[in-house]
């Protein structure tokens, strides 16, 4: 058992609960047609984002994926600002220009979700090289799915990090599906992505991505290793995606009862609650109170986002450095 204090545990629970409530609510709200574009939900993977980001400082940088809401919340992005962004409002974190796939908040070290699979990994190496220049012990972290581990950019980034001894961390969230294709088909090393990082010359860790305590403990060891100046490292976390690739995905690739089974057996929030109550570290009442507060926060975020002002159409070509026509 990790030696985490009461407040740390309750804080971790709050962040996981916030991610879950945010995503479950979006799943419902998307059906109203008020939210356009593509939305990829993070439900099921909360223990990964929180188990990792809870150990980072605001100066540590992360790059995220198309399935980025969980990373954003775990790294400290404002939940209401995120909801406004997903509704395309002027008050959104990216002024409504980015949407679900492109949320970023550099003030909290969140360098951006990414619509291109594999687009982020090299940028994490860049952030790591910046930290190395400053000699400040900070790290650059690339969250990647099992899909992104097949992109050339990810391979190039891993090798670049190794040869430059950059304090880069490659986090592979293996949720078993590259969009609509199974990982056994799409990844030549099947359910072993970490071995690829190992082949590039990195030290690797493996963890159960549905177990906050395992994710936290394995990443703690990894982080200590990277912060000590040993160069890059990687961790693969076995996790579950409770929804489809995107909202609207019919998920015909799932087996019978699969979604019920993973919600029953692989729910990181349920597992967390059991561990902390069995060990008498937190009470159900405390966590229920957190859930209630989170529910109110999400209600407020949705109400604010639904009522939010749209961006001024005259701003469409702002922030492009140069003007034409």
């Amino acid at each position: 058992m990790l030696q985490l204090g009461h407040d740390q545990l309750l804080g971790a629970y709050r962040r996981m609960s916030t991610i879950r409530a945010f995503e479950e609510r979006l799943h419902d709200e998307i059906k109203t047609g008020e939210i356009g574009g593509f939305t990829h939900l993070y439900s099921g993977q909360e223990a990964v984002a929180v188990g990792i980001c809870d150990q980072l400082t605001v100066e540590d940088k992360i790059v995220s994926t198309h399935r980025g809401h969980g990373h954003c919340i775990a790294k400290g992005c404002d939940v209401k600002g995120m909801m406004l962004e997903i509704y395309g409002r002027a008050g959104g974190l990216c002024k409504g220009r980015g949407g679900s796939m492109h949320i970023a908040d550099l003030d909290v070290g969140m360098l951006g979700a990414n619509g291109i699979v594999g687009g982020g990994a090299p940028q994490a190496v860049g952030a790591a090289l910046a930290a190395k220049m400053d000699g400040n012990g900070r790290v650059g972290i690339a969250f990647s799915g099992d899909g992104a581990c097949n992109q050339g950019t990810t391979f190039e980034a891993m090798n670049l990090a190794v040869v430059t001894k950059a304090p880069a961390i490659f986090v592979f969230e293996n949720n078993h599906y590259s969009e609509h294709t199974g990982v056994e088909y799409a990844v030549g090393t099947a359910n072993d992505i970490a071995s690829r990082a190992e082949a590039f010359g990195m030290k690797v860790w493996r963890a159960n991505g549905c177990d906050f305590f395992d994710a936290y403990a394995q990443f703690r060891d990894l982080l200590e290793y990277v912060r000590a100046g040993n160069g890059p490292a990687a961790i693969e976390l076995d996790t579950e995606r409770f929804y489809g690739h995107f909202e609207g995905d019919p998920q015909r690739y799932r087996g019978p009862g699969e979604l019920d089974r993973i919600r029953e057996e692989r729910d990181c929030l349920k597992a967390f609650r059991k561990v902390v109550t069995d060990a008498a570290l937190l009470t159900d009442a405390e966590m229920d109170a957190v859930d209630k507060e989170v529910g109110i926060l999400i209600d407020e975020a949705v109400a604010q986002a639904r009522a939010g002002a749209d961006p001024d159409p005259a701003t469409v070509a702002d922030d492009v450095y140069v003007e034409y026509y």
Partner: protein
Amino acid sequence: MAVMNIREAILSTLHAEMERDGDILLLGEDVVGGNGTAGGPEAIGGIWGTSTGLWEKFGPNRVIDTPISESAIIGAAAGAALAGKRPVAELMFADFVGVSLDQLWNQMAKFRYMFGGKTKCPAVVRMVYGAGMQTAAQHSQSVYALLTAMPGLKVVLPTTPADAKGLLTEALRGDDPVMFFEHKALYGVKGEVPDGDYRIPFGQARMVREGGDVTVVACGRMVNFAEKAADKLVADGIGVDLIDLRTTSPLDEDAILDSVEQTGRLVVVDESPPRCSLAADIAALVATRAFTSLKAPPEMITGPHAPIPFSRVLERAWLPSPQTIEGAVRRTLAFR
């Protein structure tokens, strides 16, 4: 003649051509869908519905689900084409051209020329493009101008089901790399499609309507918008020559120049930012080759010099519209 939509026209053409020519193979992300899952292959059948049933009929050697690896998809298509096959590579979104650009630009497009004309590279790259569905900056772009500018590629943009069949068949029978653009907002457009063998030669624009007052040149979904504008204008007695380019490389220069020589007025509509765009290219063509025919400056209706925003309101502000096209037609007529 059968009535079908563009999606069905593409799917049925792929079925027919793969039946006819055993050298054609298809590869791309989730073109089968469900491989390696409990649901099994074809659980999805292609997320756009343009490859449904192909795997079952033609098997895994000819219908290949790839990992998310766009450089490898395009590069493998280039190599298979050099090796004598006729690959059709699918990019789920045309924006992913960015990931695979080297294989298109430095490789596929250059082979025939660079190897002294001794090779063929009969690869077709099908890609889904276009804005209007709030898919934001990395899933909405119309990168046809970028690829049109590359010597060694042919660029095709069907706007009707009949054209989708005729142009895709032509692409699959040709010996050169073809960039085949499918607009995500046009898949449901219905129309009559000729039965049997139907090919449309590249470089032949389609005269959508003849009105004689102003020449409007468009491609892709902008043809659809221009038709709406032309419908409004005709009520005021303004007749539009509407030209659907169908292919931007090769370009039917004669169709454009012949029309402008009659009307003296040009509006070009392009779902792209303005700089180095197709609109700029065609305006330059007319300015240099039909200068004395012009009665007004060419009008270019494009997006602004900006990425495509997510917000519904901003995306609408970004896109050309029937209203902005109509306004341009009226401006060019009012010019004195």
